[in-house]
């Protein structure tokens, strides 16, 4: 209480009266998860690192990003970015370009040569990781960060899995892939390339040499299209095609390629073939608008001259004039409950013929479960797990081998969660992963009166002629200026940005500004909630007052 008096007029200021007794609810400052965090496959703290970009703290943004994802430059190129779909700014004008900002931070980290810091303490326990794709590398990274000894076994001659052998260079530059993969390898991981863990005996022996095993062998077996002769010279499977060298791709494809499938792999094959100078037609079961590939991939494929025949299936292949006559028929397509499930029934009398000389089926891949028969129990098309734990003690599994979620960043998220589970099983003092406890900040918690409508800054694409002439990247990066402008569009949902609105809007002077914090003066706060209503980020809420 202030006892300064004004001698002529009054004895005391009104501070003698404690109006806090009027109150039934009290504002509470609590940062809450943003909707983008909830939607993010790795639950990245997007609002935090985007603010760091806005403030020009790029090393800080990199540190925040890589808490959950060691591949910001890769994810910033190829993530299916459900974060942007969830963005609260969509209702105001346009979503924030989170993915392009992630790429910006990732590229900066590569060009600046940022490394991961060494673990604080080394732990004696060792974990074997089988599979050097996104799930395996993500788990290796998280376990190594915690100080565990990590040995990684990769069947092929290079790390990256699908990121190396599936995604073409025009979507993911190999220098970027190498930089982010090597940064993980440099953390002191014992890496074995060309090291196939062939069967359950090999797996059991690995389990014997390590305290835990994480199985992330992916889905490497192509699904087979019934009625198609895979041994015929004109048929190449998509996985083999994408993994092959450019010379080999050229040798195996004729002048007109028919790609079967509507997902990302089908687009990758189609666009690769266009870069080899081939005519390309995509045949998908799904009708137009329902193709599972990302919208931007479909748009870019169309720009590059890929032809689409949708809502139809192949039923016969025969030799024709100058190539193959491919008999097709229109179908009724009904998606199923789970990802990858569907029903397609041919419509009588809708048959038609397509011409091509090469057929590349790209209808998805299954995990190879047979080699673990007797040790690991399958559950449908994947290995059965409970919290990443398989039926074999000490053997954990994640990524495509244990899930039908088929996006790269989902595998990264699974690798992270599994690593935390493994860590907690080896050292009970480490916390296992926990589901998000706090509710996500919904749009109406954001006071948009403080946000001018500002259009999104989109990344540019290379011109179509240039794209078709090489395997150089299509998407062009944001400039530093554009990145900062785009980052400043973020509402920072659920994160206090210290704008002082709560302080200034209090009619009772009941908020004190501290160093990067605020305090409510319970003696005077009447509990009106103006501070909450005028908060531009939803970082304050009213709670029942339990002050005695």
């Amino acid at each position, binding site marked *: 209480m202030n006892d300064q008096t004004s001698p002529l007029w009054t004895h005391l200021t*009104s501070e003698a009266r404690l109006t806090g007794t009027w*109150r039934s609810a009290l504002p509470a400052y609590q940062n809450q998860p943003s909707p983008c965090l909830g939607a993010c496959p790795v639950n990245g703290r997007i609002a935090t690192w985007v603010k760091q970009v806005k403030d020009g703290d790029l090393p800080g943004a990199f540190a925040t990003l890589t808490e959950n994802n060691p591949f910001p430059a890769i994810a910033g190129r190829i993530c299916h970015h459900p974060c942007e779909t969830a963005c609260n700014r969509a209702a105001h004008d346009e979503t924030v370009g989170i993915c392009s900002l992630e790429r910006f931070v990732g590229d900066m980290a590569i060009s600046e040569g940022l490394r991961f810091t060494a673990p604080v303490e080394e732990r004696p326990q060792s974990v074997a990781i089988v599979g050097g794709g996104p799930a395996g590398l993500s788990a290796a990274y998280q376990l190594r960060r915690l100080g565990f000894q990590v040995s990684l076994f990769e069947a092929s001659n290079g790390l990256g899995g699908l990121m190396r052998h599936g995604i073409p260079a025009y979507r993911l530059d190999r220098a970027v892939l190498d930089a982010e993969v090597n940064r993980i390898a440099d953390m002191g991981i014992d890496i074995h390339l060309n090291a196939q863990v062939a069967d359950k005996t090999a797996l059991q022996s690995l389990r014997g040499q390590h305290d835990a095993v994480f199985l992330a062998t992916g889905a490497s077996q192509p699904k087979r299209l019934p009625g198609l002769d895979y041994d015929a010279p004109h048929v190449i499977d998509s996985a083999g095609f994408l993994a092959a060298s450019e010379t080999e791709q050229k040798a195996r494809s004729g002048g007109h390629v028919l790609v079967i499938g509507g997902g990302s792999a089908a687009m990758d094959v189609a666009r690769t073939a266009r870069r080899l100078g081939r005519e390309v037609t995509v045949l998908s079961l799904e009708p137009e608008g329902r193709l599972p590939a990302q919208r931007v991939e479909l748009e870019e494929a169309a720009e590059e001259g890929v032809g689409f025949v949708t809502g139809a299936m192949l039923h016969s292949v025969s030799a024709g004039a100058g190539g193959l006559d491919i008999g097709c028929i229109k179908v009724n397509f009904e998606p199923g409950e789970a990802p990858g499930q569907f029903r397609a029934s041919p419509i009588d009398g809708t048959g038609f013929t397509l011409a091509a000389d090469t057929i590349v089926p790209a209808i998805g891949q299954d995990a190879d479960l047979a080699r673990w028969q007797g040790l690991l129990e399958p559950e449908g098309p994947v290995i059965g797990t409970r919290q990443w734990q398989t039926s074999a003690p000490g053997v954990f599994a994640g990524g495509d081998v244990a899930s039908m979620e088929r996006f790269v960043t989902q595998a990264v998220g699974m690798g992270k969660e599994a690593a935390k589970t493994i860590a907690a099983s080896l050292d009970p003092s480490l916390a296992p992963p926990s589901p998000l406890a706090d509710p996500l900040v919904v749009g109406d918690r954001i006071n948009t009166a403080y946000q001018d409508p500002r259009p999104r800054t989109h990344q540019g694409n290379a011109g179509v002629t240039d794209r078709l002439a090489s395997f150089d990247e299509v998407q062009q990066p944001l400039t530093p200026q554009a990145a900062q402008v785009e980052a400043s569009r973020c509402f920072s949902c659920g994160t206090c940005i210290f704008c002082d609105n709560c302080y200034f809007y209090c009619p009772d002077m009941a908020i004190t500004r501290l160093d990067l914090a605020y305090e409510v003066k319970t003696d005077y706060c009447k509990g009106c909630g103006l501070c909450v209503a005028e908060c531009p980020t939803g970082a304050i809420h009213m709670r029942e007052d339990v002050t005695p």
Partner: protein
Amino acid sequence: MQKIDYCDDGQFCSGHVACAGCAEALSMRVILNTVGENAVGVVSPSCVAIIVGGHPTSSARIPFQHGTLESAAASASGMKRALRAQGRDDTTVLCLAGDGGTYDIGLQALSSAAERNEDILYICFDNEGYQNTGGQRSSSTPMSAVTGSTPAGNTTQKKNLIEIMAAHRVPYIATASPSDLSDLAAKVTKAKTIRGTKVIIVIIPCLPGWGVADDAAVKTARLAVESGVFPLFEVENGVTYRLRTTEKPAPIAAYLDQQKRYRHLSDEDRQALQDDVDRNWQRLLWLAAGE
């Protein structure tokens, strides 16, 4: 986003008895801190008088005289002349009144002070009624609004005080809103530098009087501004109108829906209010274009 731009030097104290969430207390905070230490005030019977508080405590650091409802501007005029006689002409004389003490009961005193161009800063907190005596209507109450004395809705137009004051050719008139505290502070700062009679009318959505939620006074004021019900502008020397924005205002529906006092309105009533707002806006554009 722009940070709010003014400095709180502790000129307005906690512990006052304004309703929880009151936009008038919020506006007083900005005004008293912007006017600063070298000032004295007159307050007419109104919510402001209650918020400043009676003897022996005060929520204001500067001295205030509690005047009568008829004579706030006259008291302030006398006070300024007395200060000048003492050689203290640099002291700001602030007059805080409600719409009852300005539009109705104190209009004569204000008109005479304006006529003489007394060097006072007159702030009217316009909550469109006698809100602390039971919420009766005043001549500032808008058409159709329900008040304690017009349970079926007010049947007269809101008096246009700004044009009345403009007709006196006072050097500075402004409208302000608790939804834009930086603008309010800037207008008070500007008024302080001008000699003569300055009048600032601040829109104050009254929580019980208008039927607005405890946390929604600022939002309601913002809607009033954005819908053109209460546009923000300045008038210099009674002739030069300067509008904060000339963008077409938003429809008034969201503003009306925010308040219980308009809940009884038919679609025709609402349209009539919209037409009225549109007409006033057109006139304001014309005045601003004219010189």
